[in-house]
């Protein structure tokens, strides 16, 4: 039988006398054609090929997918080459074990367990970090101090330009908005109080914390995440080195030290930014500075400083935590970086709100 023009692949079913289904395939089967659909019932199927032309992997794939769950599937009437291709797939599947479908309820339950699991892991990681710090203070931990100095540079010094820019603009914006309101009551001189107080207590620390989340948390998450992928973390453990102490402690320590310094810097740059706007028309430089110095109390300074320490810790910890639980894939590392930034910023804003309540309570 020689055929030059291809015929469409087809399949028809027939119910036999003994209740089993006969499936007859015919035509030319290629992966470029869409395949026929069939409906059948029952646990017994017999396959036959009538007038079957050429076929590639599409036909064995179609047979495999349709009949793999049928208890009795008789392939003996098929051409031996086709039969062998189907059986090969079936045999290989057997040893891999069944993959039971999950119900909606089950998925929901798994999600519930997973999310509590991730909280448990987060608290576990916080605990390990705390123990790591305690052991470092006692001089018992193995800490990678070269990572510490490297991070002082990359998470601290290298962040100066962006912190300067954003701090400056923050001060500038606040002064601008403040002036619009204060002009109406003729109290423009208080713009200095507004800007300096807001920068010291609030914005200096907050802006720096958010920048640290964008720059440092993501970088830590991808560093530790890719070390997870290449099993470098496991290699550390296999050498008897605790990865939290070795990798996370120096990073968190460096960032917790650098963020407060950056925040102080941002504060001053922000006050300077406010001055540019205020002195462009309404105030003299002298007036602005006198008013600013009067407004900043040591207490406000301390508030900003304490906050920035906490924000630095949160940003660094979020990065290390998300990195250490990253899935072992390129996608997993990307997800870790994203979720580190989200987690860091969320925790920083929550912490800021808590600080506001606490400082208010103690009249600070």
């Amino acid at each position, binding site marked *: 039988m020689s055929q030059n023009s291809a015929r469409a692949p087809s399949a028809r079913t027939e119910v036999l006398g003994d209740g089993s289904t006969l499936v007859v395939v015919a035509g030319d089967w290629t992966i470029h054609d869409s395949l026929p659909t069939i409906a059948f019932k029952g646990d017994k199927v017999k396959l036959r090929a009538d007038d079957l032309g050429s076929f590639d992997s599409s036909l064995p794939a179609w047979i495999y997918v349709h009949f793999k769950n049928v208890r009795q599937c008789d392939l003996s009437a098929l051409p031996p080459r086709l039969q062998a291709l189907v059986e090969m797939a079936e045999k290989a599947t*057997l*040893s*891999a*074990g069944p993959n039971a479908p999950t119900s909606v309820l089950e998925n929901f339950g798994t999600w519930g367990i997973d999310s509590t699991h991730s909280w448990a892991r987060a608290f576990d990681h916080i605990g390990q970090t705390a123990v790591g710090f305690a052991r470092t203070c006692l001089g018992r931990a*193995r800490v990678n101090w070269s990572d510490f100095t490297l991070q002082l540079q990359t998470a601290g010094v290298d962040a100066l330009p962006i912190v300067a820019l954003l701090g400056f603009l923050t001060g500038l914006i606040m002064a601008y908005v403040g002036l619009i309101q204060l002009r109406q009551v003729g109290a423009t001189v208080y713009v200095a109080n507004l800007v300096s107080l807001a920068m010291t207590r609030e914005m200096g620390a907050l802006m720096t914390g958010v920048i640290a989340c964008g720059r440092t948390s993501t970088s830590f998450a991808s560093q530790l995440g*890719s*070390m997870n992928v*290449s*099993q*470098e973390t*496991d*290699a550390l*453990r*296999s*050498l*008897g*080195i*605790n990865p939290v102490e070795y990798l996370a402690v120096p990073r968190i320590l460096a960032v917790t030290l650098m963020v407060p310094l950056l925040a102080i810097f941002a504060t001053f740059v922000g006050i300077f930014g406010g001055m540019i706007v205020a002195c462009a028309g309404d105030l003299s430089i002298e007036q602005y500075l006198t008013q600013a110095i009067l407004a900043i109390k040591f207490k406000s300074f301390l508030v900003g400083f304490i906050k920035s320490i906490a924000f630095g810790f949160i940003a660094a910890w979020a990065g290390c935590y998300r990195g250490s639980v990253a899935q072992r894939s390129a996608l997993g590392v990307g997800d870790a970086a994203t979720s580190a930034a989200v987690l860091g910023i969320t925790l920083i804003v929550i912490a800021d709100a808590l600080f506001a309540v606490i400082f208010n309570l103690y009249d600070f």
Partner: protein
Amino acid sequence: MTAVAPVLLCEDLVVGHAGHPVMSGVNIRLSAGKILAIVGPSGCGKSTLMRVIGGLDEPMAGRSALLGTDLTTATALEREKVLRRSGFLFQGSALFSSLTLRENVELPMREFLPLPPHEVAQLAEYKLALVGLADAMDKLPSEISGGMAKRAGIARALALDPSVMFLDEPSAGLDPVTSGKLDELVLKIKESFGTTIILVSHEVPSILRIADFCVYLDSDTGTMGAYAPPKDFLSPTAYAKAHAFFTLARIS
């Protein structure tokens, strides 16, 4: 209890991932200075088992003791102590990608040996020369081939003169000459340092040559099929699947 505690003792061990058992019924008793080969089809759980008996992962059930420490009940500190006395070569080598080969080998030495840097450097140089990488010491892991990475991983596992070594497919991807040299190295380590070595391998000739015992993991049943000296698997009376694995692999 025998007079000498076994280096590795597994009793009804079950290992798996995320609540799904992969391999169960693992019973092994291995005394010091022996070489144990773990064989089985790919995906049957060899690496998973190695990680558990090597103290990196928790077993799902059963008991596993390494160097006399019960890993199922050990505290984190006890576990770290045992890990420090063992060396691990991962299937993917797992070299520290930001460090040169020399620094990779030096890292555990710097952390745990009370030696000045130049002495650590000498030790690292020797370990790298042992695995034939004296010329590549200052290369980064990204600059070497997979086979070289495997050998560098062995050098790092050797760094602290471990009492027991775990080698996950050390000879996979190596040419026959290098792989033959690796067999010799493994034998030499065992003979001169008395190191117990547990390795995963697919190369039957090499297993027959170096291993004292062999574990066959059966992927169809998900259990340990057999535990015997490798020569026993050559006789037709042996565990059928292990025998088939050995004879098939020997022909090819």
